[in-house]
């Protein structure tokens, strides 16, 4: 675990970059430092690998002061990824990735094999191995940067806005890739970004910093969204934090109904019996076909091309409440369709019911947070 203990950094020109910051960075998880430009994120990150020395305070790595070991040893135990990848122009992709293993004295062959292995891990085609950095796209360069940082299998990974110079589509790909790699490798990652969406998506814990390098809030992303500590954090989270917070709520407990769901061979009685403005017609295997008002349906002659589209379905337990709500909002009838893994209808749910589920979840969440706080106070007291 990395412990930052009331660390202050004042640059020689008097700039207060970080002000008595204390953070506990848990092992094997992604901790995100987020905040507006100039709030001291980079400075904080660089104090962890001693690229910047703190003015006051200490940083502990697994209980030991990082000042105690030689700086090169410390840095070799921490991968470092920066914004523009910082690749070595004169070296090919494999040789870039093999840099640290070579520095640690590995043979050329072994280092190259390791590099090839890492290319696959970060989703790079090994056909790119012999290319030079200028022959790669920005996203590919960034992947090489990540592979290079992982090459010697360091337990810690420090990342400073690694994905901010690529377009949104590539960025999403890189973020998903990082989450996947993290699932496999379980590194202790400290990730700097100024993008709150990225922070919420990647972070197990998110530290929001404000100007002058002071900690505004340190919390898991769901708590951050539901319970911002103050106006600054709330403002920083943006106008739709409520909607975004729904990504952390599960649809497992959502109450589904199969009342308005009818098979393609439904009888006139079944159609007449349903007490709903719209009915969802499925095919013979139970997959959704579309919605229709009951009076427009003729038993025995249901025409799929006359049905209203059912929009995008969601998978309960897999998709979040945010997805379910989105499905309901996009559905022409206001009802979201829930399906199983095979795409068969499990039931439908109205915006009303989703709204109730959100309210319940928020109530439960609030109680949970309050309990958590009380616990914290006990520890501190």
């Amino acid at each position: 675990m990395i412990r930052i203990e009331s660390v202050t950094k004042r640059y020689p020109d008097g700039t207060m970059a970080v002000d008595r910051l204390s953070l506990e960075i848990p092992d094997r998880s992604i901790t995100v430092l987020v905040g507006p430009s100039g709030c001291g994120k980079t400075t904080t990150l660089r104090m962890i690998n001693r690229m910047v020395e703190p003015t006051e305070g200490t940083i502990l790595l697994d209980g030991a002061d990082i000042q105690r070991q030689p700086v090169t040893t410390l840095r070799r135990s921490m991968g470092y990824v920066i914004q523009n990848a910082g690749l070595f122009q004169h070296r090919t992709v494999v040789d870039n990735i093999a840099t640290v293993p070579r520095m640690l004295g590995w043979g050329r062959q072994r280092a190259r094999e390791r590099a090839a292995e890492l290319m696959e891990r970060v989703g790079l085609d090994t056909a790119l191995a012999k290319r030079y950095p200028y022959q790669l796209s920005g996203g590919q360069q960034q992947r090489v940067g990540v592979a290079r940082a992982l090459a010697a299998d360091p337990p810690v990974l420090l990342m400073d806005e690694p994905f901010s110079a690529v377009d949104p589509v590539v960025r999403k790909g890189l973020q998903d890739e990082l989450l996947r790699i993290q699932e496999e490798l379980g590194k202790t990652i400290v990730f700097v970004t100024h993008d709150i969406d990225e922070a919420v998506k990647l972070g197990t814990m998110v530290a929001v910093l404000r100007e002058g390098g002071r900690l505004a809030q340190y919390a898991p992303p769901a708590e951050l969204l539901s319970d911002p500590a103050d106006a600054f954090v709330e403002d920083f989270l943006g106008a739709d934090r409520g909607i975004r917070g729904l990504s952390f709520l599960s649809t497992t407990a959502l109450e589904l109904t199969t009342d308005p769901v009818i098979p393609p061979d439904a009888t006139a009685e079944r159609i007449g019996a349903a007490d709903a403005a719209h009915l969802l017609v499925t095919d013979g295997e139970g997959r959704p076909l579309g919605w229709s008002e009951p009076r427009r349906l003729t038993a025995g002659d249901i025409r799929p091309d006359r049905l209203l589209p059912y929009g995008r379905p969601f998978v309960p337990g897999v998709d979040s409440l945010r997805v379910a709500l989105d499905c309901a909002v996009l559905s022409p009838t206001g009802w979201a369709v829930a399906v199983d893994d095979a795409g068969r209808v499990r039931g439908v749910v109205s915006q009303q019911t989703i709204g109730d589920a959100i309210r319940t979840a928020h109530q439960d969440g609030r109680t949970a947070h309050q309990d958590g706080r009380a616990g914290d106070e006990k520890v501190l007291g």
Partner: protein
Amino acid sequence: MNIFDFAHAFFGDSANWQGYDGIPQRFLEHLQYSLLALAVAAAIGLPVGLLTGHTGRGGNALAFIANAARALPSFGLLVLVVLLIGFGLLPVMIPLVVLAVPPILVTTYEAVRTVDPSPVDAARGMGMPESRILFQVEVPVALPLILSGLRSAAIQIVSTATIAAYVSLGGLGRYIIDGLYQRDYEKVVGGATLVAFLALVTLVLFWAAGRFTVSPGVRRR
């Protein structure tokens, strides 16, 4: 008679290809002076330029010294040194080295100082020692510029090494000085042509050195 006729007459005379005043001998002498001067200038200019460029410190002092050195006329310096220490190889080497150090020093400094800082930052962050950062990260990228500094120094040395003849040494300057003294313009033109040829050879050699030592990733080809 035009200069082509002079050159033709000079190179056509078989007597000019033999003996202690023959073309091979003088060419070799010129080459020796030039290489020695370049080696000494590089031994001074490269380490200082690399170090100041890497640390980014001392740039102003460097520019001042380099400009002062550039302002010294080589011939004047030669006369001064001869007056001070007498004839020999040393008084020829001093002005040549003084001439060659500034371009090597200043371009090397600039070449290293202007290397993209992010790979250097990445290298330092992965625990690379400073010497390794200099030689394995900065120099390979700065190499084309460093070579261009060495190249202009070499060209200036080759053309200025003719002054060796003033202090009774050999080299291609002999033809020019003796020719002017004897009003033998064949000799003057022949000597000047040889100096130009050596300069050209120097250019080709540096071009080849660039081809073989600069990474394709830096050349971007």
